[in-house]
């Protein structure tokens, strides 16, 4: 009896999606609700939580350090988008050229950095961007006669180090995404364009870029998310969550600082909810503009 019920065509789909429903309810909905609730509370060690209305949120709006964190995260996200979408796309097209020598080797070497953990990669970059004369970056600068720099103590150079780390790790992965997109573009399109006398650049702009749109949307979505939620990279690069003048502080870093380092659970929860809203708004706007939902329906 039970067996027949479970095996019926009506019930089977629910059995298939059950694991997701459980995980969603237990590990997402419940914690999200308690985060939301906490964001309206003042929580003190060993005492009952007090409801304080929107106090946490109004305080956030004037919190300079928080605004700085938002600024850093937003700048980092925008710059990673600017670097990590066009360049990997270009590399993918070039490496896909039939005249390319050693294609497999280059694909692999571009992919290598993604195999290292952030802990390892961040430590390597921290030591490379060290301020000692002998560190890698400073010894390169010395070749051009530029004095040693304190990379990780200044806003601009600190951001460069963060971007270098992101670019190094993700160029290869994004390139592979685009390569997979390229596979879906039929060769006849290019042949037809060639007959019409289109230049390589025209072909790239008129055929490749538009037809890679689905891949680009996917990469864009995950990059927005990854950019706004970045934390461990900064933590490893500065060997902690306290960078000079907070140049490496991100939104999640601030959440971590308030909630875990300073025991302000309620305030940290508010930071989390603001981050959630920002991510949602940006991504939903982006998806609405690029028309993913239209296609889904």
């Amino acid at each position, binding site marked *: 009896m039970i067996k027949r019920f479970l095996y019926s065509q009506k019930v089977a789909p629910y059995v298939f999606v059950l694991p997701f429903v459980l995980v969603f309810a237990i590990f997402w909905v*419940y914690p999200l609700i308690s985060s939301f609730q906490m964001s309206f509370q003042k929580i003190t060690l060993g005492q009952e939580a007090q409801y304080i209305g929107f106090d946490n949120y109004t305080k956030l709006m004037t919190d300079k350090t928080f605004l700085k964190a938002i600024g850093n995260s937003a700048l980092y996200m925008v710059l990673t988008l600017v670097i990590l979408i066009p360049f990997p796309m270009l590399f993918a097209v070039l490496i896909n050229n039939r005249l390319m020598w050693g294609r497999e080797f280059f694909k692999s070497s571009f992919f290598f950095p993604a195999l290292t953990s952030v802990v390892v990669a961040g430590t390597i970059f921290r030591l490379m961007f060290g301020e000692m004369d002998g560190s890698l970056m400073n010894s390169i600068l010395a070749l051009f006669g530029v004095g040693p720099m304190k990379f990780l103590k200044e806003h601009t150079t600190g951001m460069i180090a963060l971007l270098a780390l992101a670019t190094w790790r993700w160029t290869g992965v994004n390139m592979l995404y685009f390569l997979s997109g390229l596979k879906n573009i039929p060769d006849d399109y290019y042949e037809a364009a060639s007959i019409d006398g289109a230049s390589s650049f025209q072909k790239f702009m008129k055929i490749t870029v538009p037809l890679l749109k689905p891949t680009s949307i996917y990469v864009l979505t995950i990059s927005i998310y990854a950019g706004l939620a970045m934390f461990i990279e900064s933590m490893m690069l500065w060997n902690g969550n306290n960078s000079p003048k907070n140049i490496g502080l991100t939104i999640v870093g601030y959440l971590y600082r308030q909630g875990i380092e300073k025991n302000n659970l309620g305030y940290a929860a508010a930071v989390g909810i603001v981050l959630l809203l920002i991510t949602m708004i940006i991504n939903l706007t982006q998806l609405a503009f690029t028309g993913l939902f239209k296609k889904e329906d």
Partner: protein
Amino acid sequence: MTKSREKAVRICLFIFFVIISFFILVPFYAVTISAFKPGEELVRYGLNLKFDLNVMSFDNFVYLFTGDHAYFTWFFNSLILTIVQVVLTLLISATVAYGFSAYDFRGKNFLFICVLLIMMVPFEILLLPLYKLIFNMNLMNTYSAIILPGIASAATIFFFRQYLSGIPKELIAAGRVDGATEYGIYVRLILPIMKPSFAAMAILNGMNSWNNFLWPFMVLSNENKYTLPIGLKTLLTPYGNNYDLLIVGSFFSILPIFVLFIAFQKYFIDGMTAGAVKG
């Protein structure tokens, strides 16, 4: 195109990629060199490319293999955790994705929007409530605490669903005609077709799992349960001079994945590129 022009394009392309690869590989070279140098050297001069035989030796490697530390425990933990996590996540996510793609049922759209939403919720904002939850479930310091929250991974479900949408419904109908049960169809007919997409997702999930840091770090507090990234991070403290082990350990943590990667290079790249993202 003329022969000579073709050749010029070839050479330009090649040189361009050699230069880029050079920049990508430099950090690896620097780590490799540093693995042979004493940690003190590293702290004093930073990471650099100096190939100086006078300060280089196998001491760090000797220490790695014979010293009194937990490195290989961490390494083994990471390996097991990665394998278990990847296999379970793939199996379960594929099953869920099949449910979404093969059937029309009440609440399907709502549930699928939930999948999309999860992809946009930064996991980090859940750290504290999730920590409490895991504790109340009595799962602190277990690998279940790491595996369970991610076992139905939204991105993986999304990817599989996209992949499955390319599979003709007739196949499923034919299965029913042959008398297969709903689950039989999935196991016997669909799973085998999904093989290429499994490869791609195995790589992505495997990378994530091998490198995962923040959440495992929060729930694991016993040194013998640490994974490699956590273990390596514990070496980064001014209160214990551990740079010797840190760098050689980092070097060695990259090495096996490289070997695996080079051995299965074709599957890696093909798997990644096969799973085309269809909009």
